[in-house]
């Protein structure tokens, strides 16, 4: 089954506000997809729905043919746009936590990445900068052998050098069975690693195409096309 994620008429409303409006979307395996759109366009809502943190108002969402639940959470690795660890935790506590709950978590890979980025496993999160905390969180998420990685603003708070390392990590970690969905504003930074892009605006999908197709048909970069489509 090549279809990894399927959205059918997926709608999410917050009271009278519609965040996602009848989205129909299929994400196959083996792709790195940029989920791009201006603030409040519905990117984070879509990612939260995939992870079961929100429930759809209407429509359905399937991961490997299943609605979000404990079984899909085994194969989806999620990086939210906020820090979700307790500040009293040490990095080793987090490693133990992920080892306990995720069968696909590779402690060796995580420790290797921590060492590469110079993060002491014995350090407490409370003693770390915001950027370092984000790096720790991303390392944990990318150290899983998941089918789908959902990364919400993964590089927003880290320095350019670490950004390169993180993007390299994303590319090297995923395989033909997995896909990576990245939501970000920093399009130019990630453009080179993307296979596909999804432009989302006001809860509607404006464009779902491969990066190569955009370059060939539009004759411009994704960043340039984004600025054109979403010009204020």
């Amino acid at each position: 089954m090549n279809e990894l994620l399927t959205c059918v008429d997926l709608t999410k409303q917050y009271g009278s506000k519609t965040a996602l409006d009848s989205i129909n979307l299929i994400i196959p395996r083996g792709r790195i997809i940029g989920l791009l759109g201006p603030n409040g366009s519905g990117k984070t809502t879509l990612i939260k729905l995939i992870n079961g943190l929100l429930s759809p108002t209407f429509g359905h969402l399937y991961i490997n043919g299943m609605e979000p639940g404990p079984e899909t959470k085994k194969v989806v690795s999620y990086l939210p746009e906020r820090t979700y660890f307790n500040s009293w935790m040490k990095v080793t506590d987090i490693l133990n936590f992920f080892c306990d709950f995720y069968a696909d978590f590779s402690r060796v890979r995580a420790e290797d990445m921590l060492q590469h980025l110079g993060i002491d496993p014995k350090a407490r999160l409370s003693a770390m900068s915001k950027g370092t905390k984000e790096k720790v969180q991303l390392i944990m998420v990318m150290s899983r052998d998941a089918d789908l990685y959902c990364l919400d603003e993964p590089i927003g708070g880290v320095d350019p050098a670490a950004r390169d390392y993180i993007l390299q990590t994303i590319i090297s970690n995923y395989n033909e069975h997995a896909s990576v969905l990245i939501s970000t504003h920093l399009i130019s930074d990630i453009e080179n690693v993307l296979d596909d892009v999804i432009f989302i605006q006001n809860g509607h999908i404006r464009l779902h195409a491969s990066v190569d197709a955009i370059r060939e048909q539009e004759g411009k970069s994704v960043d340039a096309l984004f600025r054109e489509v979403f010009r204020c």
Partner: protein
Amino acid sequence: MLRKLIKHEFKSVNRLMIPLHLGLIAITIIGRFYIQLALKQYPVLTGDNVWLNLANMSLMLFYIVALMAVGLTSMIYLSILRPRKNLFTDEGYLMHTLPVSAHAHIWSKLIVAAIWLTIDTALIILSVFTMFVNPDFIREIFTALPDLLSSFRETFGISMGTAIAVYIPLFILSTLASLLVIDMSIAIGHSFNSHKVLSSVGVYVGATVLRNLLGTILQTLAGVVTSGDTAGISLGTFIFYYSNLSTTVFWLGCAMAALMAAITMGVAYPLTYYFMTRKLNLE
């Protein structure tokens, strides 16, 4: 997975609960030393001096306030702050993306909170006992024990051992029911798009009013039974008519408490589960 959740829940909760209760033990030991040793060794401390008496009263007041603070902190932290923070704020982004069911989340919180609240209650009782008990008191207790046991049997119609054996599971059941009502209120309140805390409080107030109403109805039914009015038509009357009245009162009280807890859990649990799965709204 439930076992793992409980393990990590204990790890988090123990960070507050252990120092808090170590503090309680320390205050108890110091207080015991002061009351049983210092005051007895130096009777001048309990003399007619108004300032010394005032100081002793202040120390006693401090002890009572400390006991209340430990009890209240444990209750508020375990029943409200911890589940809310862990499941419905930023930490919820991690907890709700773990491959575990909502049942496991609910039970892990309930089990750890119930265990710590039981320890808390036991330690507070033990603290009061430790503070004031002395050899004379223990001697008197042992002397009076046969009378105490027989009078208990006369009053309630059952042995004290049976009463304790029945009361402990009832205490645990009632604690679980009370915790579940709070969990349910938080889960429902946090499904709203705004004013989540206020909504949770509102749901809790509503649930408490309904529980009190149910309690009143059950007590009224129990009253019909225990009034001795054999013309009463309730089923309870029929069952307990031929039994000893004091035994009836005891068992009926237990049955009503158990029924109350069972109804509460029967309503609160599915609602908590439903709102944590179908209406989860982490914004």
